[in-house]
């Protein structure tokens, strides 16, 4: 069973990202479980969402404390919060950032970056002040982890995103291409 934790800010779509990813894994035949950090979500405040997938039915009914991988929708969270808390060594950290992986000092982990903000702007997803990056970054996740196919991500995005589904899917595809590892 693999556990993934997504960090974001309220309104960035961390929970949706978690769900889309779950759908993508589900499409690849996995058992999945996706859920937000059970709390009080407020716009702008740091939020977390979780994802489990497995080859058998998932029977855990608790929060994820020691994730295998992280997705970080906003690189400022890395300084602001202890994102790597409980993260298992060698795990991936997929960061939305124009910086390069080596710019982050995360020695125990594998880091991948993609400028999802730029992609969001390119496809006019969200606004400049609050770009919607949750779909694009999933392309980076697929690219970096290779745990699932980009096509699965694209299909899930198209199924799950209610508006601008194609643009979101394209953003994910672009991210897949532009991810730096």
């Amino acid at each position: 069973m693999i556990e993934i934790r997504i960090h974001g800010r309220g309104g960035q779509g961390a929970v949706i990202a978690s769900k889309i990813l779950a759908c993508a894994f589900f499409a690849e035949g996995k058992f999945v479980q996706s859920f937000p950090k059970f709390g009080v979500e407020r716009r702008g405040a740091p939020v977390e969402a979780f994802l489990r997938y497995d080859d058998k039915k998932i029977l855990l009914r608790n929060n994820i404390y020691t994730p295998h991988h992280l997705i970080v929708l906003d690189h400022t969270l890395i300084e602001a919060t202890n994102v790597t808390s409980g993260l298992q060594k060698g795990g991936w950290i997929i960061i939305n950032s124009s910086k390069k992986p080596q710019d982050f000092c995360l020695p125990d982990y594998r880091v991948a970056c993609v400028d999802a903000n730029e992609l969001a702007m390119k496809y006019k997803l969200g606004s400049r002040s609050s770009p919607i990056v949750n779909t694009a970054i999933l392309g980076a996740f697929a690219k970096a982890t290779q745990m699932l196919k980009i096509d699965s991500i694209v299909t899930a995005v198209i199924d799950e995103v209610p508006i601008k589904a194609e643009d979101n899917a394209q953003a994910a595809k672009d991210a897949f291409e532009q991810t730096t590892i």
Partner: protein
Amino acid sequence: MKKVLMGNHAASWAVKLADVKMIAAYPITPQTQIVEELSEMCGSGELKAKFLKVESEHSAMASCIAASSAGVRAFTATSANGLALMHELLHWASGARLPLVMVNVNRAMAPGWNIWADQSDSLSQRDTGWLQLYVEDNQEVLDTVLQAYYIAEKVNLPVMVCYDAFFLSHTYEAVDIPEKQAVQDWLPPHARENILNTKDPRAFNGLVMPDVYMEMRYKLQQAHEEAVAVVKEAGESFAKAFDRSYSTIETVYCDDAETVLVTSSSTTSPARLVVEALREKGMKIGLMKVRLFRPFPVDDICQVLSGKKKVVVIDRNISFGKGGIFADEIRGAIANDPQAPIIFGYITGLGGRDITPELVEDIVMEAEKNERPERLALWKGLKS
């Protein structure tokens, strides 16, 4: 069709499939997405129902009672304080013998404000005459809401489907959504006698004098007793139609078990892992999931537990001054059995505290270690 759905949306889908005609609801976390989704469904026209956006849970229940009295399938959903606000009307719905279905997403009662999982809200309503089913995962949410209509309309009693806040309500899992036609074939169209009808005008719920009130209450109790079989029948016929089977209780490894772990709702899932692991270690342990709480399936439970050495009950709820409610109910059910086991009642996970496999194992091992419980209410997971 399988879809990744949050528990709340699984409930919404069931309501849509059941062809519910009237929904009245008021927002409360963690129930809200159920009715948000239903609102979307009504808005888009895929569900042809009236949706009353009432000003309180109390009015939601009042409207549902009224709509059901007027002969249509009605639905509402709530949690915690919302449910408590409905309390009076819960009696009204059962006393009026209405086949209402309500989802209650189990949430802790305030104060302090706590929106997380805790069964105390619905268990506080155990004496209102409603049937109560506690479910474990999102698939069961959908399947049970459908069965709830089946059961309710057979016994003319309201049914409450309960599941844990966030652990199910907000958690996405793959759910197999039955075809609409298949559901319609299995769940007969809503057709009832004794409804508000201007062609045959009757007064409902009027004054009942002492000379017959007791008989009517007796009939209500009778209906509850009969409902146990109906719940089983619903589960069996559902299994035939959809290949997923349900009953009043579910047992795992109980036949030869010396110790039986008893759980309900989402707590059952980690318990399955624990029992599986302990079995592998050679421990004679079984698991009993109690799905039907009202009516309490006394016979089914006693049949499983009679003769066992120990029964360990995990309660994510408490009846203050006594202890865990499932544990207490089981004690009461089996009290007259000469082969009654020793019952360990554990309270844990209140207010959304995680129940991890480690915690469950801890509980089981502690019970295994002690000959008898020190007291009725044993607490696990308190800060030390």
